[in-house]
């Protein structure tokens, strides 16, 4: 994949954040004492490895990188930061696409890559307990072949469960199976003051607030998870995968609507437009026709009898909506080729353009024709090509803005911003699975008003009153917590209109 050009300025928030103390030699010594000298990096070369996550246009050098190996070490690291008032960022595999793991300048970067143990596999209860550095793919491997872990982001070979928890990761199968948040039943977390807190467990419905649900997807701003209990489910009896080709994305969209409204919930339903097909076919060579307007991949899973019946239904619906041809995977190799084409879509863009910018927006599914037309219109306006990949069931759109060289990078990003605004205007969201991070925080006010952001900050302050955990992310502007306000009470005389307060 060609590296996107470096065009953006470092995010401004990192300097003006409430927590702004810097790493000191004394803090580094303390971290060395906790984790061992071999697991604390301060050399410029070592630090550079951690200056970006998967979103390469943002780069910030941390003051120190530390790799704790246990909950106790994480706790001691975080306590040392608390004592020194130094902000920190937790990082999993660094494959995130919103700059969520971008370091704080002169802050501490806590990499969780050494915490990769599978702590317990409990298949009778359909649970697995893992440390945060375990990769997404390793979870399914550990519970297979009888069970699997449904959330499957495209980066599943490398991305870590800790990162998935932070970002509430989805994937191609989440329309039917749900997101990370639907599978996390328990967490052990370390708060910024070093307190270790257990949320949930293997059991459901623990008494009290659903802090588990608020922690998942909080982008590392509420604490660090050090152990994760996940629900896993039995592997379906049968999987059938097909791809239908259409003249237009609208026709494919109509087919999606008809499939879903008819009561079929496919395991996955993914759409690629012509530009995407061209690029992916060049990369994979799976035999997709490159002169069609849209490819619609539908995967059905479940019981054998149900799959067979529904496959016939889906084929009939596609034909009714004008499909040009339909290919039904006849074996595992064929199924793999179809999925390889889909999953290669991002990386394959390098074959048709020197650079690209991946957008992540969500729209109500029925708005697809309008929004795609708007994207095409914006592309024309900017003189840039936009390829579209679409998790069609849940309305998650990934437009890829293609551009050539650093000179166009800023315009490409601007166009991507206009696209995300079009998603919000259509009743959708600025991000479906990549997160807000630093990249999207400027769009937060498009979705949320001041009282909404104030409520977000209430939650944040309950967990991290000093703003040390991943500051400068998610919220559009830095905020301080302050003390819990004392209740304002009207004086009885004031209430009765006898006196007023001036």
């Amino acid at each position, binding site marked *: 994949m060609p590296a996107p050009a470096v065009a953006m300025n470092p995010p401004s928030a990192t300097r003006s954040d409430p927590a702004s103390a810097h790493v000191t030699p004394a803090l580094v010594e303390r971290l060395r004492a906790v984790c061992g000298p071999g697991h604390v990096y301060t050399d410029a070369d070592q630090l550079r490895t951690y200056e970006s996550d998967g979103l390469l246009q943002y780069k910030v050098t941390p003051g120190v990188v530390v790799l704790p190996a246990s909950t106790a070490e994480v706790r001691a690291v975080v306590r040392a930061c608390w004592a020194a008032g130094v902000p920190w960022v937790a990082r999993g595999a660094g494959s995130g696409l919103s700059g969520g793991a971008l370091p704080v300048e002169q802050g501490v970067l806590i990499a969780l890559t050494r915490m990769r143990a599978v702590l317990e596999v409990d298949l009778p209860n359909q649970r697995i307990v893992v440390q945060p550095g375990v990769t997404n793919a390793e979870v399914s491997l550990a519970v297979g072949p009888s069970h699997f872990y449904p959330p499957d982001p495209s980066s599943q070979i490398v991305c870590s469960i800790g990162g998935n928890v932070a970002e509430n990761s989805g994937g191609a199968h989440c329309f039917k199976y749900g997101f990370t948040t639907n599978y996390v039943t328990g967490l052990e977390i370390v708060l910024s003051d070093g307190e270790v807190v257990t949320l949930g467990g293997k059991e459901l419905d623990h008494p009290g607030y659903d802090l588990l649900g608020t922690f998942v997807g909080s982008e590392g701003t509420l604490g660090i998870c050090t152990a994760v209990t996940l629900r896993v489910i039995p592997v379906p*009896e049968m999987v059938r995968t097909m791809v239908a080709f259409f003249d237009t994305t609208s026709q494919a969209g109509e087919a999606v609507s008809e499939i879903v409204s008819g009561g079929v919930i496919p395991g996955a339903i993914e759409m690629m437009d012509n530009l995407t097909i061209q690029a992916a076919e060049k990369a994979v060579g799976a035999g997709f026709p490159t002169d069609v307007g849209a490819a619609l991949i539908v995967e059905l899973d479940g019981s054998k009898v149900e799959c067979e019946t529904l496959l016939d239904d889906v084929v009939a619906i596609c034909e009714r909506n004008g499909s040009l041809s339909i290919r039904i995977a006849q074996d595992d190799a064929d199924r793999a080729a179809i999925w390889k084409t889909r999953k290669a879509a991002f990386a394959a863009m390098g074959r048709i353009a020197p650079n690209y910018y991946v957008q992540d927006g969500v729209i109500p599914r029925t708005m697809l024709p309008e929004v795609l037309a708007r994207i095409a219109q914006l592309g024309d306006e900017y003189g840039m090509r936009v390829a579209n990949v679409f998790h069609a069931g849940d309305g998650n759109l990934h437009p890829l803005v293609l551009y050539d060289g650093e000179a166009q990078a800023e315009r490409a990003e601007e166009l991507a911003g206009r696209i995300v605004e079009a998603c919000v205007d259509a009743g959708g969201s600025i991000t479906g699975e990549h997160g807000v991070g630093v990249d999207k925080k400027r769009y937060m006010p498009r979705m949320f008003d001041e009282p909404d952001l104030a409520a977000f900050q209430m939650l944040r302050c309950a967990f991290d009153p000093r703003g040390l955990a991943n500051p400068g992310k998610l919220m559009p502007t830095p905020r301080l917590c302050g003390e819990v306000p004392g209740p304002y009470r009207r004086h009885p005389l004031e209430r009765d209109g006898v006196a007023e307060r001036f």
Partner: protein
Amino acid sequence: MSAHTIRRETPRTAEETAKLLHDCAADAIAVRIEGAGTKSWGHPGADCGVRLRTGGLDTIVEHNAGDLTAVLQPGVTLRELDETLAGAGQMLALDVPLGAGDAATVGGAIAAADSGPLRHRYGAPRDLVLGVTAALSDGTLAHAGGKVIKNVAGYDLAKLFCGSYGTLGAIVELAVRLHPRPPAQVTATGTTDDPAELAAAASMLAHCKLELQSLDVRWEESHGVVLARFGGVAAAEQAAGAQGLLAEAGLQAAVEEDDEALWAAQRAGQRSAEGGAVVRVSGRATQLEQVCVAARVAGATLVGRAALGVSWIALPPAAPGELVQSIARVRNVLAPSPCVVLDAPAYVRTHLDPWDHPEDATLVLMRRVKQRFDSTATCNPAIFVGGI
């Protein structure tokens, strides 16, 4: 405070709701926030000067049939909602007991994180709610989430408000995910008088490759039943398959095509008769036999979501002192699985902690959340976990 001084309020807009909470906070008046009042759960709580019911907020704001989503005010009754959605062949997969006069509201069910048999396939309220708008005691209206199925922008406060029992503020609007109504439903049942055999059969179905709508168990007097419900195009074939598996496991197996009464009874089993009590057990699936035995020993009826490990033990009406002792025994046997008392006479909810305590550090964090959202302790004070 005596009952006659309680002021009743049913605000008709979100703004009125926020203003009411703000004014009450300023005057140090505690507010009891309720839907239809079909669930008196938790601690009896502090005396409240105002009783806020959401019945004035009873509009289905949007039903986006093509997107399988809806935007609802909290006072919409689940029954009315279901009738509306049925017209489009859709449903909100929240099949909870509806209470007296089928009065239960969507806001109340979600604020109490109640759930029914469909949870097996479609999840709990937390999995169905896409967005929330809440009136807070500082007078603001805070909104989180959205009305699309997939969305990771901002903190997921919708989950925080699910199961918060109105202690953080009053929900004034909800966006929810809908599902297509399955065209046909068929249930396979297996009956046995051996709790071990019941648990083994339920576990076998929980791990089998059939796609179930619901997987419940029931224990009543001297026998138990496993109920496996299927929906969709292959419902009958799958139910026949499950019947075969149950028979192989040694149970007396049958298939019921007209199965609505069976499931109505499962829902009803989550509530108690007047003068009885219900304990909700958050167990592990492998504890099912133990939970059945605990119910049998207590002379109680049990319904449970077999694959999820969540069960409801309904103790028959008894003297309040006896109920307190029965509940303590159930808790002793099933510890450390959380056992939360739901329906129960006020005496019982006063003489034991209806909530099982979370760990201290967890409770401290929950208190901090309450303080940030409702610093004046205006909303449903002292009814929740740890007296929150």
